């Protein structure tokens, strides 16, 4: 009986792994051939389409735009999230539960609707479509996330350290910068990293709120109009590689922290 369960388990797990990896393997494999269609039979390997992608200024500038929007909007989201989490965790505020609910509310609404709302508002207010507008949208989706992560990590332990610092005469800004921020660093880092990945991958808000200068997902979307295209395979594989490197780095820093 136990043996049968084991064998069936292995087969099932292999099938699911196969399902999960199938599209990614196909994507990467057919990015490595020089023909103009990314379809079987496989002929290759060739780096032709990577050359084409890396010399395409639209794609490379979209990549830079994406990195800019992701890092600046994540910085804003994590700063606003941290300050408000600190305020709510340390002080008694009237209507605190309601206000905290308000900050986390955007988590329950789909990106499409957040983007639509901003589009209508900016259209009325005469704010032009731009990377800045998309960045504002990205702060809206990431602020509640940063707030929730940091707020949930603010426990008694940190309060006592802060109290000790105050007893020793540290002014409020010194407590914040020299005690709270370093102690909360893992949560702050996690919030920032998550915001970066969500913003980096976000499509619909950027699609609605940018026009000429746009982010990488929107530029990849524009490539899709030409159907199956090895260029898309190459961009996709590159994005995948960059993300994997980031995730591994994140894991390593996290593991080192845990060991220390």
């Amino acid at each position, binding site marked *: 009986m136990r043996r049968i369960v084991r064998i069936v388990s292995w087969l099932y797990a292999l099938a699911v792994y196969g*399902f999960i990896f*199938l599209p990614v393997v196909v994507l990467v494999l057919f990015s490595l051939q020089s023909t103009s269609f990314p*379809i*079987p039979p496989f002929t290759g390997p060739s780096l032709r389409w990577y050359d084409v992608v890396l010399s395409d200024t639209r794609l490379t500038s979209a990549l830079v735009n994406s990195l800019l929007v992701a890092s600046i909007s994540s910085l804003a989201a994590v700063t606003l999230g941290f300050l408000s989490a600190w*305020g709510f*965790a340390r002080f008694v505020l009237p209507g605190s539960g309601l206000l905290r609910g308000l900050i986390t509310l955007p988590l329950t609404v789909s990106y499409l609707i957040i983007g*639509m709302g*901003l589009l209508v508002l900016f259209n009325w207010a005469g704010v032009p479509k731009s990377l800045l507008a998309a960045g504002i949208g990205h702060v809206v989706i990431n602020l509640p996330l940063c707030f929730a992560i940091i707020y949930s990590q603010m426990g008694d332990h940190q309060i006592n350290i802060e109290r000790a610092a105050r007893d020793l005469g540290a002014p409020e800004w010194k407590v914040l910068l020299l005690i709270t921020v370093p102690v909360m660093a893992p949560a702050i880092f996690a919030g920032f990293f998550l915001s970066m990945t969500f913003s980096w991958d976000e499509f619909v808000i950027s699609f609605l709120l940018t026009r000429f200068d746009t982010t990488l*997902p929107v530029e990849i979307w524009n490539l899709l109009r030409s159907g199956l295209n090895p260029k898309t395979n190459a961009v996709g594989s590159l994005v995948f590689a960059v993300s994997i490197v980031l995730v591994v780095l994140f894991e390593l820093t996290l593991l080192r922290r845990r060991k220390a």
Partner: protein
Amino acid sequence: MTAANNGRALPRAGRALPWALVTPALGWTLLFFVLPFIAMGLSSLTAHEGSGFTVSNYSQFFTNPSYWQAMVNSLEVTAIVTVVSVLLAYPFAWILAEQVPERWQRLALMLAVLPFWTSYVVRSYSWLLVLAQNGVINRALTGIGVVAEPLQLANTRFATVTGFVHFFVMLLTLTIFANLKQLSPSYRKAAADLGAGPVRTFLHVILPLTLPGIMVGAFLTFVLCIGDYITPQILGGNNELLMPQLVMMQIGRRGDFPLASALSIILMAVVTIAYLACARWLKIERA
């Protein structure tokens, strides 16, 4: 989230400091989340051309069968995706948590969610490569002679569902795995002591204890799936429209913001109703 109860008004902190800390975040949310929502609500009550308030955008949804059909399609696809994803992910998460040796579990889980890190748009496109007329699956099937003609797999509901299930199996595996690992081993020991075999232990102890976690995951799947534009647009084509595609069509082709706003609000109302219907089960988790 119990930290708030421990915070006391601190001796040297003035009244102004706490508000100075929370106002930027609150202001941002009011200005760029609540206000846009109000703008969208007002916009949905105006006509695309002409002035004055009207409910015609909402009545159009109920009278125009193609709009109504988009909502039906959305609900059907979302229901299928949610059920299939849970059914696929639960045994997988169970195997990772129970059958894989402890020291390999972290690696096995990381591998299982690796494709998560490709871009969302690219992941849907990759499925197009797999399912296309001359794609990998059709080449393999015609190659070994199972079918004579390539199957129409891309630009169908099947393709949309496959793309969605791929994404949500990864998401649900993560949440269900975490859920299974949180169970104390003493439950299993107690069940064994009381004479239950592995099957009965699973059905009467493990499954009920992980049900709240499954409900949360299923709800998350529902919300993310019904609001997604990318997957149906890339994989489903325009053969049958889902609600997000209908919304984007009003903006893209006709610049009809009022109708797009009304459809968005209807979509959000449906999600809210689903939340209220599930709220009873979702609450269990907090206890």
